[in-house]
Protein backbone atom coordinates (compact mmCIF):
# COMPACT_ATOMS: atom_id res chain seq x y z
CA UNK A 1 0.00 0.00 0.00
CA UNK A 2 2.80 2.35 1.06
CA UNK A 3 4.66 1.44 -2.11
CA UNK A 4 1.62 2.14 -4.26
CA UNK A 5 1.46 5.58 -2.72
CA UNK A 6 5.10 6.18 -3.68
CA UNK A 7 4.48 5.04 -7.26
CA UNK A 8 1.41 7.26 -7.47
CA UNK A 9 3.41 10.28 -6.38
CA UNK A 10 6.27 9.35 -8.73
CA UNK A 11 3.87 9.17 -11.68
CA UNK A 12 2.62 12.65 -10.81
CA UNK A 13 6.15 14.02 -10.31
CA UNK A 14 5.47 15.08 -6.75
CA UNK A 15 7.73 12.94 -4.56
CA UNK A 16 9.30 14.82 -1.66
CA UNK A 17 13.07 14.49 -1.37
CA UNK A 18 12.67 11.98 1.46
CA UNK A 19 10.21 9.95 -0.61
CA UNK A 20 12.52 10.14 -3.60
CA UNK A 21 15.32 8.56 -1.58
CA UNK A 22 12.99 5.79 -0.45
CA UNK A 23 11.73 5.34 -4.02
CA UNK A 24 15.24 5.02 -5.47
CA UNK A 25 16.28 2.53 -2.79
CA UNK A 26 13.25 0.35 -3.48
CA UNK A 27 13.91 0.58 -7.20
CA UNK A 28 17.40 -0.83 -6.65
CA UNK A 29 16.52 -3.48 -4.11
CA UNK A 30 13.00 -4.68 -4.87
CA UNK A 31 12.49 -6.36 -8.25
CA UNK A 32 8.69 -6.41 -7.91
CA UNK A 33 8.64 -2.72 -7.12
CA UNK A 34 10.80 -2.04 -10.16
CA UNK A 35 8.45 -4.08 -12.35
CA UNK A 36 5.46 -2.21 -10.97
CA UNK A 37 7.10 1.16 -11.62
CA UNK A 38 7.84 0.02 -15.18
CA UNK A 39 4.18 -0.89 -15.72
CA UNK A 40 2.87 2.47 -14.47
CA UNK A 41 5.52 4.40 -16.40
CA UNK A 42 4.53 2.60 -19.61
CA UNK A 43 0.87 3.20 -18.88
CA UNK A 44 1.51 6.90 -18.33
CA UNK A 45 3.32 7.15 -21.65
CA UNK A 46 0.56 5.28 -23.50
CA UNK A 47 -2.28 7.28 -21.94
CA UNK A 48 -0.49 10.58 -22.57
CA UNK A 49 0.17 9.53 -26.15
CA UNK A 50 -3.50 8.65 -26.73
CA UNK A 51 -4.71 11.83 -25.06
CA UNK A 52 -2.33 13.94 -27.16
CA UNK A 53 -3.34 12.15 -30.38
CA UNK A 54 -7.04 12.68 -29.65
CA UNK A 55 -6.46 16.34 -28.89
CA UNK A 56 -4.39 16.81 -32.07
CA UNK A 57 -7.12 15.16 -34.15
CA UNK A 58 -9.71 17.43 -32.58
CA UNK A 59 -7.69 20.55 -33.40
CA UNK A 60 -6.94 19.38 -36.95
CA UNK A 61 -10.70 18.82 -37.34
CA UNK A 62 -11.42 22.38 -36.16
CA UNK A 63 -8.95 23.79 -38.64
CA UNK A 64 -10.29 21.68 -41.51
CA UNK A 65 -13.81 22.86 -40.75
CA UNK A 66 -12.62 26.46 -40.68
CA UNK A 67 -10.87 26.10 -44.03
CA UNK A 68 -13.97 24.54 -45.59
CA UNK A 69 -16.17 27.30 -44.21
CA UNK A 70 -13.72 29.94 -45.44
CA UNK A 71 -13.65 28.52 -48.94
CA UNK A 72 -17.49 28.39 -48.97
CA UNK A 73 -17.56 31.99 -47.75
CA UNK A 74 -15.04 33.00 -50.42
CA UNK A 75 -17.24 31.35 -53.02
CA UNK A 76 -20.27 33.22 -51.77
CA UNK A 77 -18.31 36.48 -51.77
CA UNK A 78 -17.12 35.77 -55.27
CA UNK A 79 -20.64 34.91 -56.38
CA UNK A 80 -21.98 38.15 -54.94
CA UNK A 81 -19.21 40.14 -56.59
CA UNK A 82 -19.78 38.36 -59.89
CA UNK A 83 -23.51 39.13 -59.78
CA UNK A 84 -22.75 42.81 -59.26
CA UNK A 85 -20.30 42.79 -62.14
CA UNK A 86 -22.88 41.12 -64.39
CA UNK A 87 -25.42 43.72 -63.36
CA UNK A 88 -23.05 46.41 -64.46
CA UNK A 89 -22.87 44.83 -67.85
CA UNK A 90 -19.27 43.73 -68.02
CA UNK A 91 -18.70 41.12 -70.67
CA UNK A 92 -16.18 38.95 -68.86
CA UNK A 93 -14.85 38.16 -65.49
CA UNK A 94 -11.35 37.56 -64.33
CA UNK A 95 -11.70 34.66 -61.98
CA UNK A 96 -8.80 34.51 -59.54
CA UNK A 97 -6.82 31.35 -59.86
CA UNK A 98 -7.78 28.98 -57.09
CA UNK A 99 -5.01 28.63 -54.57
CA UNK A 100 -5.14 24.96 -53.68
CA UNK A 101 -3.28 24.33 -50.46
CA UNK A 102 -0.25 22.08 -50.47
CA UNK A 103 -1.92 20.04 -47.74
CA UNK A 104 -4.95 19.41 -49.90
CA UNK A 105 -2.78 18.45 -52.87
CA UNK A 106 -0.74 16.10 -50.72
CA UNK A 107 -3.91 14.51 -49.35
CA UNK A 108 -5.38 13.96 -52.79
CA UNK A 109 -2.23 12.46 -54.31
CA UNK A 110 -0.61 10.54 -51.50
CA UNK A 111 -1.42 6.90 -50.99
CA UNK A 112 0.93 4.54 -49.17
CA UNK A 113 2.65 2.21 -51.62
CA UNK A 114 1.18 -1.27 -51.54
CA UNK A 115 2.94 -4.12 -49.84
CA UNK A 116 4.89 -6.00 -52.50
CA UNK A 117 7.47 -7.41 -50.11
CA UNK A 118 5.61 -9.82 -47.86
CA UNK A 119 2.20 -10.73 -49.31
CA UNK A 120 -0.16 -11.52 -46.48
CA UNK A 121 -2.20 -14.69 -46.90
CA UNK A 122 -4.79 -15.24 -44.20
CA UNK A 123 -3.84 -18.14 -41.92
CA UNK A 124 -0.71 -19.05 -43.82
CA UNK A 125 1.85 -16.59 -42.57
CA UNK A 126 4.43 -17.11 -39.91
CA UNK A 127 4.14 -14.49 -37.21
CA UNK A 128 7.68 -13.15 -37.55
CA UNK A 129 8.50 -9.46 -37.26
CA UNK A 130 8.56 -8.95 -41.02
CA UNK A 131 5.06 -10.39 -41.44
CA UNK A 132 3.78 -8.50 -38.40
CA UNK A 133 5.22 -5.27 -39.79
CA UNK A 134 3.50 -5.67 -43.13
CA UNK A 135 0.25 -6.85 -41.52
CA UNK A 136 0.28 -3.67 -39.42
CA UNK A 137 1.06 -1.63 -42.55
CA UNK A 138 -1.79 -3.16 -44.52
CA UNK A 139 -4.20 -2.74 -41.61
CA UNK A 140 -3.31 0.94 -41.37
CA UNK A 141 -1.62 0.54 -37.99
CA UNK A 142 1.21 2.73 -39.15
CA UNK A 143 2.68 3.52 -35.76
CA UNK A 144 3.22 -0.18 -35.06
CA UNK A 145 4.55 -0.69 -38.58
CA UNK A 146 7.06 2.14 -38.10
CA UNK A 147 8.46 0.58 -34.93
CA UNK A 148 8.82 -2.79 -36.63
CA UNK A 149 10.30 -1.41 -39.85
CA UNK A 150 12.92 0.49 -37.82
CA UNK A 151 13.82 -2.65 -35.92
CA UNK A 152 13.96 -4.75 -39.10
CA UNK A 153 16.06 -2.19 -40.95
CA UNK A 154 18.51 -2.06 -38.04
CA UNK A 155 18.95 -5.83 -38.12
CA UNK A 156 18.80 -6.58 -41.87
CA UNK A 157 19.74 -3.28 -43.61
CA UNK A 158 17.21 -4.13 -46.33
CA UNK A 159 16.57 -0.77 -48.08
CA UNK A 160 12.86 -1.46 -48.67
CA UNK A 161 12.23 -1.03 -44.93
CA UNK A 162 13.31 2.61 -45.32
CA UNK A 163 10.83 3.03 -48.14
CA UNK A 164 7.91 1.53 -46.27
CA UNK A 165 8.74 3.30 -43.02
CA UNK A 166 8.78 6.59 -44.95
CA UNK A 167 5.40 5.75 -46.47
CA UNK A 168 3.96 5.04 -43.03
CA UNK A 169 5.41 8.31 -41.70
CA UNK A 170 3.91 10.22 -44.62
CA UNK A 171 0.53 8.68 -43.91
CA UNK A 172 0.85 9.95 -40.33
CA UNK A 173 1.72 13.39 -41.74
CA UNK A 174 5.28 13.21 -40.44
CA UNK A 175 6.89 14.23 -43.71
CA UNK A 176 9.92 15.82 -42.05
CA UNK A 177 10.91 12.44 -40.65
CA UNK A 178 10.16 10.63 -43.92
CA UNK A 179 12.45 12.81 -46.06
CA UNK A 180 15.84 11.62 -44.73
CA UNK A 181 14.71 8.01 -45.12
CA UNK A 182 13.66 8.55 -48.73
CA UNK A 183 16.90 10.38 -49.50
CA UNK A 184 18.80 7.45 -48.03
CA UNK A 185 16.65 4.99 -49.96
CA UNK A 186 17.42 6.81 -53.21
CA UNK A 187 21.09 6.01 -52.75
CA UNK A 188 20.42 2.28 -52.58
CA UNK A 189 19.93 -0.09 -55.47
CA UNK A 190 16.61 -1.37 -54.29
CA UNK A 191 13.89 -2.48 -56.72
CA UNK A 192 11.62 0.18 -55.26
CA UNK A 193 14.03 3.09 -55.76
CA UNK A 194 12.33 3.99 -59.04
CA UNK A 195 9.28 5.01 -56.99
CA UNK A 196 11.10 7.01 -54.36
CA UNK A 197 11.23 10.35 -56.21
CA UNK A 198 7.45 10.46 -56.39
CA UNK A 199 7.12 9.98 -52.63
CA UNK A 200 9.97 12.38 -51.94
CA UNK A 201 8.21 15.02 -54.07
CA UNK A 202 5.04 14.51 -52.04
CA UNK A 203 6.98 14.74 -48.78
CA UNK A 204 8.47 18.10 -49.84
CA UNK A 205 5.02 19.23 -50.95
CA UNK A 206 3.69 18.37 -47.52
CA UNK A 207 6.27 20.56 -45.80
CA UNK A 208 5.68 23.29 -48.40
CA UNK A 209 9.10 23.05 -50.01
CA UNK A 210 7.46 23.65 -53.35
CA UNK A 211 10.63 24.18 -55.36
CA UNK A 212 12.14 20.86 -54.30
CA UNK A 213 8.80 19.14 -54.87
CA UNK A 214 8.56 20.57 -58.39
CA UNK A 215 12.15 19.61 -59.29
CA UNK A 216 11.47 16.05 -58.21
CA UNK A 217 8.20 15.88 -60.11
CA UNK A 218 10.04 17.04 -63.22
CA UNK A 219 12.57 14.28 -62.65
CA UNK A 220 9.76 11.73 -62.33
CA UNK A 221 8.38 12.97 -65.67
CA UNK A 222 11.66 13.09 -67.58
CA UNK A 223 12.74 9.65 -66.38
CA UNK A 224 9.28 8.28 -67.14
CA UNK A 225 9.20 6.74 -63.68
CA UNK A 226 6.46 5.60 -61.36
CA UNK A 227 3.40 7.88 -61.41
CA UNK A 228 4.75 10.17 -64.15
CA UNK A 229 1.18 10.87 -65.32
CA UNK A 230 0.17 11.96 -61.83
CA UNK A 231 3.37 13.97 -61.60
CA UNK A 232 2.35 15.97 -64.70
CA UNK A 233 -1.09 16.65 -63.24
CA UNK A 234 0.29 17.64 -59.86
CA UNK A 235 2.90 19.92 -61.39
CA UNK A 236 0.16 21.77 -63.29
CA UNK A 237 -1.90 22.20 -60.15
CA UNK A 238 1.09 23.57 -58.27
CA UNK A 239 1.70 26.36 -60.78
Amino acid at each position, binding site marked *: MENNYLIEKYI*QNCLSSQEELEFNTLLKTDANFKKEVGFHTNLKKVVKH*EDATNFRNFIVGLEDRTKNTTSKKSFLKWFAAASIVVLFGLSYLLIPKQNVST*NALFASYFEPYRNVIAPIVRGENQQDDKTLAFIAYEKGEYQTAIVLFSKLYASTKEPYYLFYKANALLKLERAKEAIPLLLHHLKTKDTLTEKTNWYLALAYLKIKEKKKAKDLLKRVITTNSYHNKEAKELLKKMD
Partner: protein
Amino acid sequence: MNIDHIKKFIENNPKEISKLYYSNRDSFLNFGKKYGLDYDDLTDIYQEAFIALRNHALNGKLDTIKSSIKTYLFGIGKFMIYDLLKDKKRTTNYEPSLHIQDDIAPVSFVNEEEELSMEQHLLKQFFNKLGKKCQEMLTLFYSRGLSIDDIIEFTDYTSSSVVRSQKSRCIKTLREMIKS
Protein backbone atom coordinates in the same frame (compact mmCIF):
# COMPACT_ATOMS: atom_id res chain seq x y z
CA MET B 1 -2.01 33.13 -16.15
CA ASN B 2 -5.70 32.76 -15.54
CA ILE B 3 -6.22 29.39 -13.84
CA ASP B 4 -9.52 28.94 -15.70
CA HIS B 5 -7.66 28.53 -18.98
CA ILE B 6 -5.52 25.76 -17.50
CA LYS B 7 -8.67 24.09 -16.18
CA LYS B 8 -10.18 24.19 -19.65
CA PHE B 9 -7.35 22.06 -20.97
CA ILE B 10 -7.73 19.60 -18.10
CA GLU B 11 -11.50 19.35 -18.53
CA ASN B 12 -11.11 19.10 -22.31
CA ASN B 13 -14.65 20.26 -23.01
CA PRO B 14 -14.82 20.44 -26.86
CA LYS B 15 -16.95 23.59 -26.84
CA GLU B 16 -14.63 25.46 -24.47
CA ILE B 17 -11.51 24.30 -26.32
CA SER B 18 -13.00 25.43 -29.66
CA LYS B 19 -13.83 28.81 -28.16
CA LEU B 20 -10.30 29.22 -26.85
CA TYR B 21 -8.85 28.08 -30.18
CA TYR B 22 -10.89 30.51 -32.24
CA SER B 23 -10.54 33.43 -29.82
CA ASN B 24 -6.90 33.96 -30.84
CA ARG B 25 -6.70 32.38 -34.28
CA ASP B 26 -7.42 35.36 -36.51
CA SER B 27 -5.22 37.77 -34.57
CA PHE B 28 -2.38 35.23 -34.68
CA LEU B 29 -2.73 34.87 -38.46
CA ASN B 30 -2.53 38.67 -38.72
CA PHE B 31 0.42 38.76 -36.34
CA GLY B 32 2.27 36.11 -38.37
CA LYS B 33 1.68 37.74 -41.76
CA LYS B 34 4.47 40.25 -41.22
CA TYR B 35 7.02 37.42 -41.24
CA GLY B 36 6.18 36.75 -44.88
CA LEU B 37 4.67 33.32 -44.28
CA ASP B 38 1.62 32.17 -46.20
CA TYR B 39 -1.80 31.26 -44.82
CA ASP B 40 -1.11 27.51 -44.84
CA ASP B 41 2.16 27.91 -42.93
CA LEU B 42 0.54 30.16 -40.38
CA THR B 43 -2.50 27.97 -39.79
CA ASP B 44 -0.16 24.97 -39.35
CA ILE B 45 1.92 26.96 -36.87
CA TYR B 46 -1.16 28.13 -34.98
CA GLN B 47 -2.37 24.55 -34.61
CA GLU B 48 1.03 23.39 -33.38
CA ALA B 49 1.36 26.35 -31.01
CA PHE B 50 -2.08 25.67 -29.55
CA ILE B 51 -1.21 21.99 -29.04
CA ALA B 52 2.05 23.05 -27.40
CA LEU B 53 0.15 25.46 -25.16
CA ARG B 54 -1.99 22.59 -23.97
CA ASN B 55 1.11 20.47 -23.24
CA HIS B 56 2.55 23.31 -21.21
CA ALA B 57 -0.74 23.69 -19.33
CA LEU B 58 -0.89 19.98 -18.48
CA ASN B 59 2.79 19.86 -17.49
CA GLY B 60 2.29 22.68 -15.00
CA LYS B 61 4.48 25.10 -16.96
CA LEU B 62 1.77 27.76 -17.01
CA ASP B 63 1.19 27.77 -13.26
CA THR B 64 3.79 30.45 -12.60
CA ILE B 65 3.45 32.41 -15.84
CA LYS B 66 2.42 36.02 -15.34
CA SER B 67 1.53 36.90 -18.94
CA SER B 68 -1.88 36.38 -20.52
CA ILE B 69 -2.68 33.20 -22.38
CA LYS B 70 -2.69 35.14 -25.65
CA THR B 71 0.82 36.55 -25.13
CA TYR B 72 2.12 33.12 -24.17
CA LEU B 73 0.46 31.42 -27.13
CA PHE B 74 1.84 34.03 -29.50
CA GLY B 75 5.26 33.55 -27.88
CA ILE B 76 5.20 29.84 -28.75
CA GLY B 77 3.95 30.71 -32.22
CA LYS B 78 6.74 33.24 -32.68
CA PHE B 79 9.32 30.63 -31.68
CA MET B 80 7.84 28.26 -34.25
CA ILE B 81 7.82 30.99 -36.91
CA TYR B 82 11.56 31.56 -36.33
CA ASP B 83 12.07 27.81 -36.53
CA LEU B 84 10.28 27.61 -39.86
CA LEU B 85 12.13 30.63 -41.23
CA LYS B 86 15.35 28.97 -40.19
CA ASP B 87 14.28 25.82 -42.03
CA LYS B 88 13.48 27.80 -45.09
CA LYS B 89 16.84 29.52 -44.80
CA ARG B 90 15.22 32.89 -45.21
CA THR B 91 17.26 34.12 -42.29
CA THR B 92 20.41 33.13 -40.50
CA ASN B 93 20.08 35.03 -37.30
CA TYR B 94 17.34 34.73 -34.74
CA GLU B 95 17.94 37.79 -32.64
CA PRO B 96 14.49 39.24 -32.09
CA SER B 97 15.93 42.70 -32.69
CA LEU B 98 16.59 41.77 -36.30
CA HIS B 99 12.99 40.90 -36.78
CA ILE B 100 9.83 42.84 -36.64
CA GLN B 101 9.48 44.64 -33.33
CA ASP B 102 6.63 43.64 -31.07
CA ASP B 103 6.05 42.90 -27.42
CA ILE B 104 5.93 39.15 -27.84
CA ALA B 105 8.89 37.24 -26.43
CA PRO B 106 9.42 33.88 -28.15
CA VAL B 107 8.62 30.92 -25.87
CA SER B 108 10.78 27.91 -26.61
CA PHE B 109 9.06 24.67 -27.21
CA VAL B 110 10.47 21.16 -27.32
CA ASN B 111 8.44 18.49 -29.01
CA GLU B 112 8.19 15.80 -26.36
CA GLU B 113 6.21 13.34 -28.42
CA GLU B 114 8.16 10.11 -28.55
CA GLU B 115 7.50 6.94 -30.43
CA LEU B 116 5.98 4.13 -28.41
CA SER B 117 7.93 0.93 -27.93
CA MET B 118 6.44 -2.41 -29.01
CA GLU B 119 5.43 -3.17 -25.44
CA GLN B 120 3.73 0.22 -25.14
CA HIS B 121 1.94 -0.36 -28.43
CA LEU B 122 0.43 -3.53 -27.10
CA LEU B 123 -0.55 -1.76 -23.90
CA LYS B 124 -2.18 0.95 -26.01
CA GLN B 125 -4.33 -1.63 -27.77
CA PHE B 126 -5.55 -2.96 -24.40
CA PHE B 127 -6.12 0.55 -23.08
CA ASN B 128 -8.34 1.28 -26.07
CA LYS B 129 -10.41 -1.80 -25.26
CA LEU B 130 -11.24 -0.50 -21.77
CA GLY B 131 -14.66 1.03 -21.15
CA LYS B 132 -15.07 4.78 -21.60
CA LYS B 133 -15.24 5.45 -17.86
CA CYS B 134 -11.96 3.65 -17.26
CA GLN B 135 -10.25 5.42 -20.14
CA GLU B 136 -11.42 8.75 -18.74
CA MET B 137 -10.29 7.94 -15.22
CA LEU B 138 -6.83 6.81 -16.34
CA THR B 139 -6.51 9.80 -18.68
CA LEU B 140 -7.23 12.23 -15.84
CA PHE B 141 -4.68 10.56 -13.62
CA TYR B 142 -1.87 9.63 -16.01
CA SER B 143 -2.13 12.28 -18.71
CA ARG B 144 -3.75 15.35 -17.22
CA GLY B 145 -1.78 14.99 -13.98
CA LEU B 146 -4.73 15.09 -11.59
CA SER B 147 -4.31 13.69 -8.11
CA ILE B 148 -7.05 11.52 -6.59
CA ASP B 149 -8.44 14.59 -4.79
CA ASP B 150 -8.30 16.69 -7.97
CA ILE B 151 -10.28 14.02 -9.81
CA ILE B 152 -13.17 14.53 -7.36
CA GLU B 153 -13.19 18.21 -8.28
CA PHE B 154 -13.31 17.53 -12.01
CA THR B 155 -15.77 14.63 -12.04
CA ASP B 156 -18.96 13.39 -10.41
CA TYR B 157 -17.10 11.10 -8.02
CA THR B 158 -17.83 12.03 -4.46
CA SER B 159 -15.01 10.54 -2.43
CA SER B 160 -11.36 9.69 -2.79
CA SER B 161 -12.00 6.07 -1.82
CA VAL B 162 -14.45 5.69 -4.71
CA VAL B 163 -11.95 7.25 -7.13
CA ARG B 164 -9.17 5.05 -5.84
CA SER B 165 -11.19 1.84 -6.09
CA GLN B 166 -12.47 2.74 -9.57
CA LYS B 167 -8.90 3.42 -10.70
CA SER B 168 -7.72 0.12 -9.20
CA ARG B 169 -10.52 -1.75 -10.96
CA CYS B 170 -9.53 -0.22 -14.29
CA ILE B 171 -5.90 -1.19 -13.83
CA LYS B 172 -6.92 -4.68 -12.76
CA THR B 173 -9.01 -5.08 -15.94
CA LEU B 174 -6.05 -3.90 -17.97
CA ARG B 175 -3.73 -6.40 -16.30
CA GLU B 176 -6.22 -9.21 -16.92
CA MET B 177 -6.37 -8.30 -20.61
CA ILE B 178 -2.57 -8.41 -20.79
CA LYS B 179 -2.44 -11.83 -19.11
CA SER B 180 -5.13 -13.44 -21.26
